[in-house]
Each structure stands twice: as structure tokens, then as C-alpha cells.
């Protein structure tokens, strides 16, 4: 079970009030986590990654285990602590705007 923390606006869109959990059977990577997240919460498609290119939206970052993983390959394995559910995979919005 992978735990994912979403920014407040995406929680509202997904109609969840806290962390979400997704099940994975294969390798635990950014891509597989986000694929599973979007399958469970299809209203999030396009909000984290571009619909067509599947590139991370520029003002969003991916954190886990106190590291910024935003520039890692989407197919690189996520830390074991994320794969085991001990630590969450965090989607966070950049600080900007008013």
C-alpha cells in the first residue's frame, strides 16, 4: 500500500479529506504510483502530469523521505520506505502567487 499526500486543491477535486492510498503490484516508481492514483481518482488526470506528455506540471514537486525527487526519472524506483508504506509520496505545489 502506497501512501500519497496531495495538496489541498487536489484533495478537494478527488473528494478526499486526508492521505490517499493506492495498491501496486509491480515496481514502485513515480510513474506507477501516479498511474495508480489517476486510475483510482480519474478526476486528477491532467492536474499532476500533462495529459499528453505525462510530464510533471511545472509548479508541482514530488518529495519523499525528505528528498526532492522531482527531477528523478519517472521510472526510477522510489525509496523502499515509500514502497513499504512507511513514508508517503508527497505531491506538493510550489510556493507562488497570492
Amino acid at each position, binding site marked *: 500500500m502506497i501512501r500519497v499526500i496531495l*495538496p489541498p*486543491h*487536489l484533495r478537494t*477535486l*478527488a*473528494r*478526499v479529506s486526508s492521505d490517499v492510498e493506492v495498491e501496486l503490484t509491480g515496481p514502485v516508481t513515480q510513474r506507477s504510483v501516479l498511474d495508480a492514483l489517476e*486510475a*483510482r*481518482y*480519474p*478526476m*486528477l*488526470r*491532467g*492536474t*499532476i502530469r*500533462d*495529459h*499528453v506528455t505525462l510530464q510533471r*506540471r511545472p*509548479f*508541482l514537486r514530488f518529495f519523499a523521505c525528505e528528498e526532492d525527487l522531482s527531477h528523478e526519472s519517472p521510472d526510477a524506483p522510489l525509496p523502499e520506505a515509500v514502497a513499504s508504506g512507511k513514508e508517503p509520496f508527497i505531491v506538493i*505545489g*510550489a510556493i*507562488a*502567487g497570492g
Partner: protein
Amino acid sequence: MSNVRVLVGTRKGAFVLTADGKREKWDVSGPHFAGWEIYHVKGSPADPNRLYASQSSGWFGQIIQRSDDGGKTWHQPGTPPGEATAPAGPPKAVSNKFVYDASAESGKPLTTHQWYDGTQHPWEFKRVWHLEPSLSDPDTVYAGVEDAALFRSTDGGQNWKELPGLRGHGTGPKWQPGAGGMCLHTIILDPSDPQRMFIAISAAGTFRTDDGGKTWKPINRGLRSQYIPDPNAEVGHCVHHVAMNPKRPGVLFMQKHWDVMRSDDAGDNWKEVSGNLPTDFGFVIDVHAHEPETIYVVPIKSDGEHFVPDGKLRVFRSRTGGNEWEPLTKGLPQRDCYVNVLRDAMAVDSLDKCGVYFGTSGGQVYVSADAGDSWAPIVRDLPAVLSVEVQTLG
């Protein structure tokens, strides 16, 4: 008695303002989609309880929202209210997917337009500026988007398909973004001819289709813009908004970057009608519901100073289809006012005594229940207003 419902899009959410036909006492609901930019909210003429909203943010992109109960509840088309997960079967919530058509009709792999530095740049989707529901079918709705293109949904906003003939127009490589982006911001459906539609793009100009959106022609003859190398060019004009009285669809009025214009032949030719306006820069323009020669604008000081001139918020009305304008000031601030009124932020209702509405960058929404003679604020302290639409109900 008739009621009115005013749909307000702001920088930080949507608001729904309702009143009876007197338009004196208002109920305010919202913010809906709090914290998001709501570029436009509009109701279906065929089913007034069907509303569409464009919700977007720089972080999370574009979302389409729909209400089937006049704005009380909302959902993303394809995802029924209360249903968060996708059961087996086709994916749901595809309603925020806007992908440019890259077929041969529009040019492979993807056409380009002029970028700020003069180079060619591929079309990139950013957001929906304007939603225009069909006049006859609640499930059909058009979307004007940035980078400029026209999309259509025929299933209530769930799936969107580009009408590529517009972006594929031969002049596409000459279109360029204005300061606000290269946006398709105006869509006008001709009630007398379902095949005819008008759209406007900053900064390309105005276009018309006479075959339901398959092919388009630029209709900018008579526009003159000093900020482009050839002031009389076929395209490249920064048209800010176009308005039509549905009872006289061949007559169009335009607020261009500078200049207020009119056309009496469905856009084939334009002439300037700025007349005695204190400045002919501005964004909004609209037409009285019952008097097709009565038009409204809000002059803005200049393209470098996006606020009303002299600290006075004045709507200007012409009862002669342009050229002769009178300031309307009763009930509007006449000192120390420096707000802007954006292109989609004015609307008229169709009650016997035509109501006129507009919203400002300062968060005020004003109403005149007497065709502009006097004004009153409905709300004073909303976030900056991006769009105002009104529905006349019952």
C-alpha cells in the same frame, strides 16, 4: 415574476448572485471552486439549470465543471456527483482533456504560431477562456482556449474535440500572443443560422464560419492597428471583445485594443465608431437586449494604464449605434477609482427594462436595472472579477 441569476468568475472562485426581477435584493452563493481562477461560467439557453464553468490554476491546469441544478452542486462531467473512483470500463473524468487535433486537416504534427521573439512556436494548451453553450442542445458546448483554438463537446462537457479548421487556417503562423496570452475569448453563435459562428482571438482578429466550423475566414477589413507592421493586415489585430444583439445577427460591435468598431455585414467590413469617447481603449462591449442600436463600453485609460480614466468609473452608452456616447455615472464611484473591467465581465439580461451588469478588477459587481441610467453594487468585495454572465429565468 422573472428572476435573474448572475454568474461571476473571479481570480479565486465563482459566485452565483440571484434576485427577482426588481434586481434590488440579492442572494450571494460561493465561492465555488475556492482558490481557483474561474475564467468563465455560462448557462445553457436550452436548459438554464445546466451551467458550465472553466476552472484553472497555474499549478494544476484546466478543469471543466458542470452543474445541472443552476449552480447549487457541481461535478466534473463524466464523474457523477459523489463518485470518486472509476469502476471497470472506460475512464471517467476526461473532461479536462484538451488535445489539439494533429490530423492532416490541421497540419502535422502540430502547427505553429508566432512567438514573442518572432520565431515560430508550437501550439500549447493552457486554459479555457470562454464557454459558449449551444442555443438548442444543453449537451453541446464550445470552448475557446489558449493557445487559440476552438473545441466542442457534444456530451455535456465530458469529451472535447477541436474544430481544427480554425487553427489550421492559413494565417495561423502569423497569429501571436498578446500580453494576456494567445487566447480565443469570444464565441458568438448566430441564432438565425446554425452554420454561422463568430470568434475572436488576441492577437489575430475576428473570424467567421458559415459551415458549422469546418472552414473559417478572417473578417478584419477596416480594422487599423498601429502596433503591427502593416496596420491594415488581414490578421494580427488585438480584438478584445465582440458583441451582437441576437435579434439582429448581421450587426456586430467590437472593442478592439484601441478603437470601438461596428460592422453591418456580419463582419465583412468594419468602421470605427469611437466618436466622443474619452479614450477608445477598453475590453468590454455589449448591446441592449431590446434596442439593437444601444451599446455599452467602459473606456480604460490606455494599454499602459489598465484602469478607468480620471479616477471615475463610467459606463458609456450610445443610443445611435456608436459615435455619440454619454457617460453613465449615477451610483458609480466618481473619484479615486482605479479599477479595470475585463473583456468577458459585462452582460445584459432580457427583462423588459434591460438590466446591465459588469464586474471589476476591484471585486465589485454592479447592476443597472434601468438600462444604465443608474447603478448599484450587488457585491463590493469579491476577488478580482474575470467574467460576468446573466441568465433571465422564468
